[in-house]
């Protein structure tokens, strides 16, 4: 749901509910907030968020919690008293000793995990949908990207038969050329997808086709990886420039087909 990992999020919410119900004290709340948010940032998303961002968030969280704990005398006392009691009162001696050992151990483990983490190739920033050019020339035909639309889309209303023909042609093109990477079901999981980085575009995804104009998709089909701006890391992408192999009509047909197959409408033309 919304990219959240419910297995982690729901228990956290449940614990929070219990704390509300049991009227937990400030210290418990603070500890819960810190640990809970840590768990949320680390495991709460189906697609995990990068470590660097999680660190920023946790830093802000920590700062906010300190502010909260010390924002009034009563609250500070509420927060600090249990800790002072733990340290001072003899009956907690065992717990204190445990804590004294556990925290350095945790720190040591953290260092260990850091140092022995498997090496990784250096990362890079990549724009998934980089800005398109304003104008696109395919096979000596220049399109204004802002206003161009699939020339066969209108057959959907005008001439269903011709529409079907274009769709069928698009289907042929797709399964002759595209499905090795983009997948039989267009999930971006074709038989070669596992060898590619970045992974091929997933056309089932609501964040791909519906947010793009069909002219954008046409640009991507026609110019492929070599036509990407630097932000799209053209050197890594395996998308061919299909204008070398396909006619303009064929590219528009496959464009039509992938939208139709997934039941999406291209994003409406922008007002310019």
């Amino acid at each position: 749901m919304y990219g959240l990992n419910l297995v982690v999020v729901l228990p956290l919410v449940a614990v929070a509910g219990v704390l509300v119900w049991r009227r937990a004290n400030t210290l418990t709340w603070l500890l819960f907030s810190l640990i809970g948010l840590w768990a949320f940032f680390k495991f709460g998303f189906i697609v995990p968020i990068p470590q660097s961002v999680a660190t920023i968030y946790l830093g802000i969280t920590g700062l906010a919690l300190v502010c909260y704990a010390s924002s009034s005398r009563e609250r500070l006392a509420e927060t600090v008293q249990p800790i002072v009691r733990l340290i001072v009162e003899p009956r907690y001696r065992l717990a204190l000793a445990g804590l004294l050992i556990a925290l350095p151990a945790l720190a040591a483990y953290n260092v260990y995990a850091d140092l022995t983490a498997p090496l990784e190739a250096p990362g890079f920033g990549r724009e998934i949908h980089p800005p398109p050019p304003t104008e696109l020339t395919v096979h000596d035909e220049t399109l204004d990207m802002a206003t161009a639309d699939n020339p066969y889309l209108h057959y959907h209303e005008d001439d269903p038969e011709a529409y079907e023909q274009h769709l069928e042609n698009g289907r042929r093109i797709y399964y002759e050329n595209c499905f090795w990477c983009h997948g039989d079901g267009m999930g971006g999981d074709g038989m070669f997808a596992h060898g590619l980085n970045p992974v091929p575009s997933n056309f089932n995804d609501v964040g791909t086709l519906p947010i793009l104009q069909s002219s954008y998709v046409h640009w991507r089909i026609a110019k492929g990886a070599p036509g990407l701006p630097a932000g799209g890391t053209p050197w890594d992408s395996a998308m061919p420039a299909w204008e070398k192999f396909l006619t303009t009509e064929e590219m528009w047909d496959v464009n039509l087909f992938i939208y139709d197959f997934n039941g999406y409408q291209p994003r409406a033309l922008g007002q310019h």
Partner: protein
Amino acid sequence: MTACIRKGIAAAFAALLVAPAAAQVDLGTEEQRAAGKVVYDKYCGQCHGDAGDGYGYATPRVQPKPRDFTTGKYKFRTTPNGMLPSDDDLRRIIEIGAPYTSMPGWPNLTSTEIQNVIYYIKSFSPDFENPDRYGEPIDIPRPLESTAESIARGRVVYEEQGCAACHGDVGRGDGPSAPTLVDDAGDHIRAADLTQRWTYRGGPTKEDIYRTFSTGLNGTPMPSYADSLEVEDRQHLVNYVYSLGEADDPNYGTLITAAWTEEAIDLQDTEALDTLFETAPMTRFPLIGQITEPGRNFYPSATSIEAQAVYNRGEIAFRVRWNDLRADNTGRNNPSLEVPMWDEDNDIVATGDEGDDGGFFGVEEAPADDAGFFGVEEVEPQDDASFFGVETVDDSADDFFGTGDDFFGAGEAASDGAEFSDAVALQFPASLAPEDTPQLKPYFLLGDAQNPVDLWFVNLTYGVADTFRGRGSEAIEPTEADIVEAVTSYDQGEWTVTFKRRRASRAGVSFAEQQYTPIAFSVWDGFNRERGNKRALSSWFYVYTEPSVQQTATIPMLRAALIVLAIELLIVFLVRRRARQGTAEESAGGLTGTEAPAV
């Protein structure tokens, strides 16, 4: 209403009368098949053909070929050899697919949809109406434990049954007969590489392996051993086959860590070299077909490659290994060989004549619609013919009869002489982007005009390394700026190639310590007629030269622990001291401080 009930009772009686054989004939209702057709037309027809004849849009470029549903032959079944599959068998393949083929799993389909599709698929073949073609699913016993004895017994069975003839002595799919295997349609079919369990089409578990032995793969040379082997021997065989592979998962990596060594790297001293590489970390990288530039390869032979690296003060060495069903070390090959457009389509095989001197690749050319498909860029048929003709006449004669073949009997190899040799290449950027712009790399496919790449190429006919500079697929030129040495060996279906070069380079990339260098791989299988741009390749990965002086984790760990402990003790000390001191400040805690006591 009553009519309905009556009809139902009648149907029940009818069912009772024709049982038990007819109970298995479940062809679904008209509506179910119609519903199945809708799903089939959307998701299946493009490969299996709208008429179920296994000839869809994708078929010409796909290997193994999509199932022809009109024949009623299915590979992966729980039913005895020659029988029709059960619905569950069909469902299993639809749900999870067949790995490393173009048949994906369809997790997006509901159970009902799958059932409907099954009914529709069944309607393509009249066999499904014949109760005699149905067989009881076999009983798959619980797998035996993989003891040494069991594996040893399995090995005996493996040898007795002649498995090695196709699958090779250690299971790399490199048996002497492997190059000659064809399925019922006459297409070449690869014997499974038993060492790479994740590529098993029928599944990687012991149950899956047992099932394949016991039922055979209909339509392929893989027979059923249900009659020739006792259940127990099959189970031992399962254990042996299972022991050949290391994992169910290839664990593909993204980085080679080049291990530091003080020792000299001598390519000629095989033993020392093996010792060097024994400890270097090994990474397996996925290989895929080159399908973006002309000379596209939709069914590459190699699906993965293992790589290692070691380096010392002056030199760096890479070792790569991959499995190949035959050492084609007699032909020609180089990265800039031209590949005619039509050679992309595996479909040519289907109509090929075994005896033809073109081997699997008859002269029939591409189907007509394909010629039109490439429009202006199409290679003219005349050229095709002459190009092909010249090639085959010259090379197959020279190479094959001239040099012979160490690994195979002349009989097997005669029909498909090694026109092209196996080859491998490492690819590096010709120069590294400055440190602060790590994102700039050359195009992964042989670079581009502005950002060239260097290829360390070994044609396994000669076993020496050549260097090429690539500025895109069309502009690959030999260079001699740096000397790369190589040694090669082929053993039991596995190629091992070791490259060595000085770390510093005059024209190409230098390997500094603790540097991430992009690396990519290409593998050519001569048997699969891979040459030039028709090859298996990888996208960019990295090689990291590990620091020559390794640091242990102990001291940093101790330091962290001690610092934390010291802070803890300090806090405990301060708090206790303050608590002892009295009562007044305690309630205010550390907040008010001492300078400004509360009013």
